[in-house]
C-alpha cells in the first residue's frame, strides 16, 4: 500500500528527516513513535504531500506520490488532524459531507447515495444520532471521531492521523483507537503514548532526531535498551499477563 525509501527532508540548514525507509501492508495500523522533535509530524506531512521531500521516494499503491493529481490523492489518502473551530457553526453532517469533495465535479449535486454514504460513515463512528448537531457542542472525542468520519467519506485506501488521542481522556483514547482497528483499512498514526501504541498497532516506526531507530513489530521495536536511549529515561518493559501485550513504564530520573 505504502512504501517509503531513502526519504529525507531538509528545512533550511536543518536536517529534519534522514534516510527513512519502511512499508505498510494492505492491512493493519502502523504507529509512528518517538520523542518531541523526532520528525513524526514532518513524516506525515511528506506522506500527505503537504511538504516535498528533499530526496527519497514515496510509493502509494506502487505509484510515486508526486504523480498523483490533487484530486486523485484526496481519493486515495485521507488525513485526520486537529482544526481550530470553524468560523460559522456547521453541523456534524455538513462537516462529514465535506469528504465528498474529491468525488464531485463542478456542478454535481449531492444526491441520495452521497447522503447515504455520509450517514454510513457517521454510523461507523457512532455519531449518526448527532447529524444535525452543531459541531461546537461536540466533545473532543466526538470531534475526533467526526474528522475520522469525514475521512471515511473520502473512501480512502490509506488513512493518516496526527496524534488522534491528544487532549482526550482515557475513555476516548481507547474509543478512537478501537475505531481505527475496526475500519479494516491501512492506517498510519503518529502517537505519543507508547502503551497505546503497543496495544493497538500492528507495526511500529521509532524515530529519534530525524533518524529511523527501528521498524518492525511492537516486540522488535519496544526494546528496553532502545527506548532507554531514545527517551533518555530508565524504563521497564513487561508483558501484560491478560492482554499479552507489551507494557512500558518509565521511571523518574534517579529512581532506578
Amino acid at each position, binding site marked *: 500500500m505504502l512504501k517509503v525509501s531513502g526519504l529525507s527532508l531538509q528545512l533550511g540548514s536543518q536536517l529534519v528527516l534522514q534516510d527513512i525507509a519502511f512499508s505498510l501492508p494492505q492491512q493493519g495500523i502502523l504507529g509512528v513513535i518517538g520523542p518531541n522533535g523526532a520528525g513524526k509530524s514532518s513524516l506525515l506531512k511528506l506522506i*500527505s504531500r503537504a511538504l516535498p521531500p528533499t530526496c527519497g521516494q514515496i510509493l502509494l499503491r506502487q505509484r510515486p506520490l508526486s504523480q498523483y493529481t*490533487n*484530486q486523485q490523492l484526496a481519493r486515495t489518502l*485521507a488525513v485526520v488532524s486537529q482544526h481550530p473551530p470553524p*468560523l*460559522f457553526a456547521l453541523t456534524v453532517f455538513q462537516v462529514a459531507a*465535506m*469528504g*465528498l469533495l474529491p468525488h464531485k465535479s463542478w*456542478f454535481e449535486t449531492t444526491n441520495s447515495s452521497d447522503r447515504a454514504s455520509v450517514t454510513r460513515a457517521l454510523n461507523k463512528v457512532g455519531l449518526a444520532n448527532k447529524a444535525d448537531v452543531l459541531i461546537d457542542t461536540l466533545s473532543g472525542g466526538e470531534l475526533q471521531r467526526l474528522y475520522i468520519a469525514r475521512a471515511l467519506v473520502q473512501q480512502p485506501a490509506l488513512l493518516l492521523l496526527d496524534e488522534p488521542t491528544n487532549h482526550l481522556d482515557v475513555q476516548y483514547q481507547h474509543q478512537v483507537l478501537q475505531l481505527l482497528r475496526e475500519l479494516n483499512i491501512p492506517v498510519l498514526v503518529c502517537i505519543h503514548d507508547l502503551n497505546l501504541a503497543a496495544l493497538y498497532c500492528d507495526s511500529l516506526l521509532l524515530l529519534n532526531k530525524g533518524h529511523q531507530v527501528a521498524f518492525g513489530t511492537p516486540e522488535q521495536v519496544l526494546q528496553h535498551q532502545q527506548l532507554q536511549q531514545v527517551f533518555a529515561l530508565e524504563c521497564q518493559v513487561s508483558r501484560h499477563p491478560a492482554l499479552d501485550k507489551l507494557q512500558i513504564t518509565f521511571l523518574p530520573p534517579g529512581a532506578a
Partner: protein
Amino acid sequence: MVKLAARLSLPRQRNYPLMLLITLLLLVASAVFSLTLGSAEISINDIIAVLFGTAGTPALADTVIWQIRLPRLLCAMLVGAGLAVSGAILQNVSRNPLADPYLFGLMAGAGLGATIVSVVLPAQLFSVAVGAFAGALLAVALVFVFCAGQHWRKVEVTLLAGVAVSFMLSALSSFILYFAEPFAANRVMFWLMGSLSRTDWQSVLLLAPVTLLVLLLALALRRQLDALLLSDESARTLGVNTSRLRLVLLLATALLTACIVSQCGGIAFVGLMIPHLVRRLFGVTSLHLLTGSALLGALFLIWVDNLARTVLPQQEIPLGVITSLVGSLFFLTLMRAKQT
C-alpha cells in the same frame, strides 16, 4: 469583534426551499411596486401592459418604464446581488466575518479615478465611470502586486495591504480635491456615496454578465469554499489548491466590485450585512449562502433605492447613506439581541 460578528451568523432550524420561495415572491412584488414609484404616476395595470407590450399603452408610460425605471431597477438588483455575493465569497475565502467587497482599496481607487477625471483631465474626455473603473483596477493591481509571491496563504497580509493602499489613494484624492474648485469636490463626494441615478441599459449590459459569471463561478466552487471553513490544511487534504482558489475568487470579486463601483459609486454595508443575515435565514454552507445572498441582496437594494428616491421631495439621498445607516443599526440590534 471578529468573534462577535461570527456569532451573529449563528444558524437555527431553517427551511431553505421555503425561504427561497418567500424571497423570490417578495423580489417580484417589490420590483413591480418599485416601477410605480416616481414623479410620473403610472398604475400597476399600465406597468404590466407596458412590460408585456400590450397595445394601447400610454406612450409616456412606455418611455418612462423602458428608458428610466426598468434599467435602474435591474441595476439595483444586480448591484445588490453582486455586492452581497462578493461579500459572502470574501468572508469565506478570507475566513474573516468582517470582510466586505471594498477590501483591496477599491473605493479609494475608484474615488481617485473619479477625482482625476472630473478635476484634472479636460472635461468630457472620459466619463466618471471609466475613471472610477480604472482607479478601482489600479487599487486591486497595487494590492495584488504587493502580495504576489505570498501564494495567497497569508490572508491577513492581503487585508492589510488593502488598508494601506486605501489610505495612499485617498491621500492623493484629498490632495487633488484640496486645490480643486469646490463644486468638483461636491460632485465627487456625491458620486462616492453611491447612487443609481446615472445607470442605464449600458450599465445593465455590463453588470448582468459579470454578476452572473461570478455567481456561477462561486457556485461551481462551492464545495471548495465549504472546505475552507474549517482550515486551509483541511481543504488541502481534500484536494483543494487553496492558493489558486483564493487568487481566482479574490480576482473575480475584485473585478465585479470594480464594475459596480464604476456604475454607481460606493454602497457600503450591503456586502458585509447581507451574508450574515443570509446565514441565519438560509444556511451556512456555500450553496445556501450564495443563492440567498444574491436574492436578498437584490431585494434589499430595491428597497434602499425606493427610499432614496422617495424620502425627500425633488432630491435623491445617496444610497450609501441609507445602507450604512440601516447596516449599522442592524448590527447593533443583533449584538444587543445576542447579549441578552
